[in-house]
């Protein structure tokens, strides 16, 4: 069963979801310098809103996706406006605590509506087995990689070509310079949160489709931290590469050695990276001035 190609595909699909989730995290960090501990809960919210629309309201899956994404955008903007904006200029630790509190709040809200029991969801992506490199893997795992790559590509295109994407990069680079160019920093902050929530929701829906809808999705979201540290906190490309790397390593350890160990391996990597290269693989090296 645990042959190399299967583990590779599983790892890559996990990694694709991780890359999407981590992309949102990096977006927020780059634009607003906020460490968002609630990223995992955004995944959770995404999975549950999709579940509610698709299964409970029996809407077609296309409409459910649109609903989930729309909800995510509203949530992201609301969080930015009402939770983070009052914290602008506050001490980093206080901001961290606010996002930690936000994550507890979001998780509790989901539990209030849906309970803690794991829900099964009828598959959206086709899940018949296909053989690849001599191993049998479900089609949905391959589709997840495809969908994630398309979304990641769309994001990359957005940053490179669109006005708003370029404005976001300008703000990430230098807020004051961006302001003097007439860019609304507030709008960019809101946009960053909206996009982050959107990518997290897509990640959540994909993850729910290949696994189940349950609280574990938020725990999966915690692995975002090793990913962003490995990639360098402020590098989008690094994050995507790191996402795939961590996903594959995790599956390989789970398959060849010990599933329990696989849960901590990302964090061991994290500590090692922090000790050797604190700015990650592709992060910007920063020099502190007194």
């Amino acid at each position, binding site marked *: 069963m645990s042959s190399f190609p299967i583990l590779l595909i599983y790892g890559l699909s996990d990694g694709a979801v991780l890359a999407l989730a981590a992309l949102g995290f990096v977006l927020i960090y780059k634009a607003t310098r906020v460490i968002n501990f609630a990223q995992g809960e955004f995944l959770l919210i995404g999975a549950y809103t999709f579940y509610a629309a698709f299964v409970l309201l029996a809407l077609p899956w296309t409409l459910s996706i649109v609903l989930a994404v729309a909800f995510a955008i509203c949530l992201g903007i609301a969080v930015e406006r009402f939770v983070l904006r009052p914290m602008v200029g506050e001490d980093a*630790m206080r901001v961290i605590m606010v996002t930690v*509190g936000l994550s507890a709040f979001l998780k509790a809200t989901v539990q209030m509506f849906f309970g803690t029991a794991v829900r099964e969801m009828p598959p959206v992506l086709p899940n018949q087995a296909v053989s690849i490199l001599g191993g049998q893997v479900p089609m949905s795992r391959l589709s997840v990689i495809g969908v994630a790559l398309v979304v990641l590509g769309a994001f990359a295109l957005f940053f490179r070509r669109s006005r708003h994407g370029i404005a976001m990069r300008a703000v990430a680079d230098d807020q004051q310079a961006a302001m003097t160019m007439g860019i609304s920093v507030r709008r960019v902050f809101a946009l960053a949160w909206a996009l982050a929530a959107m990518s997290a929701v897509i990640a959540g829906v994909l993850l729910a489709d290949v696994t189940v809808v349950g609280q574990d999705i938020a725990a999966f979201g915690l692995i975002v931290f*090793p990913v962003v540290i490995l990639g360098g906190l402020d590098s989008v490309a690094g994050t995507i590469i790191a996402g795939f790397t961590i996903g594959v390593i995790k599956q390989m350890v789970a398959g060849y050695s010990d599933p329990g160990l696989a849960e901590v391996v990302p*964090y061991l990597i*994290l500590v090692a990276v*922090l*000790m050797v290269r*604190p700015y990650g693989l592709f992060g910007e090296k920063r020099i502190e001035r007194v």
Partner: protein
Amino acid sequence: MATATGIYQTSYKAELALRHTRAEHVRLGLTVAFLIALPYFAGSYWLGIANTVMIAVVGAIGLNILVGFTGQISLGQGGFLAVGAYSSAVLTAKLGLPVPLSVVSAVLLTAAVGAFFGVPALRLKGLYLAIATLAAQLVIIFVVRRWHWLTDGKGFVDVPRLEIAGFRINRTVFEWQWYWILLPIAVLCVVLARNLFRCGIGRAFMAVRDQDIAAAAIGINLTRTKVLAFAVSSGFVGLAGALTAHYTETVTWERFTLDVSVLYLAIILVGSSVTPCGHRFRFSPSSCRPFRTRCSVR
């Protein structure tokens, strides 16, 4: 109650005093009277809450030394509590060590573990350190869950009823007796921590918090200070963990999850106050933490 408006000392001896105004002395007297009187009018339910609060006070003081006074964010509190609780429990239950000895060993062991996980702090700051300590939390809990010899495969450790030199806790007056054990310990910890910041080590901690490069420039050894801060802080936290183990008489890993780390950070944030010059967390007299800690620490 009136507070001081400025510094009006006329002698060095007066300046050294912990309390300067009459109001502060009155407040101290009232607090002492309340703490001594409490067990005589509170039922065992309220005493149980008081006991849990006092254990949380010890743990929160430990975290505050690190976060509030040295400025190193830690999300690993739950993990360090676990180290203290498990080591004291195993030393007592398996090796049959006397309780005071196993508690002291637990404190030392947790301090050592804390110092080890403090090493990344030499290179990391702020957010990076928060994430590194998050890793410490998850790794410690993983190790604890994996070491089956710790729990004989049961998943929890049974700690025998507290017994010190022939004195044994009585079921019927359980909370009462524990109150008189925990109260001196908690008070001692508060006084100890309060005085720590009146001596050189504590001042060095605060200098590192305010500006670590400037601290190095005035001759503070950054490596030593940061590792020491982690060790001292973890020592207190280990004590809290060991007390939890003996007080609740079982140790399971569920009691030391990431949520607990977050809860403790919330405790010191709520209990702290901000002064105009920068962010400065102070001890608040253990006021704000009763009910929530009871829910999750017990």
